[in-house]
């Protein structure tokens, strides 16, 4: 593949398509490559010129739960193959392309976003670009791996319990889960509507912020989307951390982190001058509430198929979905009330602190197929516990940016990255992005080629 001379966007898209082709066999990040669409759009953009568009000519890809016109929205499933193709792109894809970006593909994921490892029986596992024997994380494993492998600088994903942040941590890229309700979810396949967030992953903080800014804006057709004006972040990215009060989350977040995760937090805290540890005392309750709500609401969404074709579900999650369908309503109702109490406890912390630090995953990427991981000498089930540090924060909708750290891992994991969560009060994405940028400039948070 080659681009005509002077065709800037065409060259950018061709480079991305070439990288996808070169890594697909080992990484398996993509479930569809939109070569014709991308080339046609690139040529159109080259004819138009950039027109001041912030993402002009930037290739990006989207988790395959985003609607893409003309494609069936799989959401990682076999069952949805029978559905009609989408008639139009998801709102966030439209907004990315309005800013000049070019969609090049759809990305692999855990079935119906219910998982943390992207070990998808129907479409194959997505492998970690830093070590293909390891998981890329999930459920947006394709998004994390596509960015880490260098096929695109930006990927879109969803995060209900950690599905942006776990792959960002394990693949070593930046990821932003915005405040619940910030970005429209219209045109995406739901998992748990009261917890679903959408957001970007990227190779650098500026790209992350550009994508986030481009996707902001109200949408009255998404019931959860806050009708807020756009609050741009890019212009203040380089303001530094002066004036920001930064502390480390202890308690739950220390107890459930292994030594490498704690080392990564210590590196980040040292770089930011954060010396105080505080406790979000409702973290365990928030996590338990999110578990019950996800299990019950996720299952209820699929009840007709669970009744008639359970054998067509992902074998790794079918029994979990079935169990969720049986959870008593009173448990879920109480869990929703506990979320609000937990949010109040977290908001009280933000009276004293602007940004809180926490590990993103208990450990670096485990080997594919791992049933168990060890956290501080305790042997725990791998798949649910990879999200044990992200789940309490998405349960209460806080904005979180994952900063990728190399050099914190040891022994057999020494070649792998691990992420640190930067957490702020609701609607303060600007603060977590500023801190992420400061860490990037200091060389503490970095994205490395595999």
């Amino acid at each position: 593949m080659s681009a005509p001379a002077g065709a800037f966007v065409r060259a950018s898209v061709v480079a991305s398509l070439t990288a996808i082709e070169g890594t697909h066999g080992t990484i398996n990040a993509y479930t569809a490559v939109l070569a014709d669409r991308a080339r046609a759009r690139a040529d159109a953009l080259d004819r138009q010129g950039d027109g001041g568009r912030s993402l002009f000519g930037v290739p990006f890809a989207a988790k395959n739960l985003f609607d893409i016109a003309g494609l069936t929205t799989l959401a990682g499933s076999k069952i949805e193959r029978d559905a009609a193709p989408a008639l139009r792109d998801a709102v966030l894809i439209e907004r990315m392309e309005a800013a000049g970006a070019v969609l090049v593909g759809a990305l692999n994921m855990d079935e119906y976003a219910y998982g943390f490892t992207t070990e998808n029986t129907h479409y194959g596992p997505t492998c970690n670009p830093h070590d293909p024997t390891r998981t890329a994380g999930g459920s947006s494993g394709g998004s994390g791996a596509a960015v880490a492998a260098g096929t695109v600088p930006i990927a879109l994903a969803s995060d209900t319990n950690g599905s942006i942040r776990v792959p960002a941590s394990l693949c070593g890229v930046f990821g932003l889960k915005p405040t619940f309700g910030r970005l429209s979810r219209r045109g995406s396949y739901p998992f748990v509507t009261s917890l679903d967030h959408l957001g970007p992953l990227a190779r650098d903080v500026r790209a992350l912020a550009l994508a986030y800014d481009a996707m902001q804006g109200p949408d009255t057709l998404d019931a959860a989307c806050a009708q807020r004006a756009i609050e741009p972040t890019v212009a203040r990215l380089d303001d530094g951390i002066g004036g920001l009060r930064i502390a480390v989350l202890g308690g739950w977040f220390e107890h459930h982190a292994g030594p490498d995760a704690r080392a990564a937090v210590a590196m980040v805290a040292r770089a930011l001058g954060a010396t105080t540890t505080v406790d979000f005392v409702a973290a365990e309750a928030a996590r338990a509430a999110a578990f019950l709500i996800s299990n019950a609401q996720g299952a209820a969404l699929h009840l007709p198929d669970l009744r008639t074709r359970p054998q067509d579900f992902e074998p790794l999650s079918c029994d979990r979905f079935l169990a969720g369908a049986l959870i008593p309503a009173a448990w879920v109702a109480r869990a929703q009330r506990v979320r609000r109490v937990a949010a109040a406890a977290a908001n009280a912390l933000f009276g004293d602190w602007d940004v809180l630090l926490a590990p993103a995953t208990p450990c670096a990427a485990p080997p594919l197929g791992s049933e168990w991981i060890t956290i501080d000498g305790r042997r725990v089930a791998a798949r649910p516990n990879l999200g044990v540090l992200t789940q309490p924060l998405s349960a209460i909708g806080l904005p979180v940016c994952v900063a990728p750290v190399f050099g914190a891992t040891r022994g057999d994991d020494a070649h792998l990255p691990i992420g640190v969560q930067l957490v702020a009060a609701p609607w303060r994405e600007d603060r977590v992005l500023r801190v992420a940028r400061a860490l990037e400039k200091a060389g503490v948070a970095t994205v490395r080629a595999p």
Partner: protein
Amino acid sequence: MTPEQQAAYVDASAIALGLSIVPFRDGVLRYFALATDMNAIVEACPLGVHDESAETFVPDGLASVP
């Protein structure tokens, strides 16, 4: 709930919902036991009658209905 009570509840509620869990029953019982543990944590969180649900219905758009 004891494991036996959980199994009885799972079997009865599966019938009520029209779900055939037979080939998946061991896994379903394992995950339901995990959900039971999570519920114990949620139950331990004190709530008052005025602690509202995080799910709030906002009747946007109804004003435009004639």
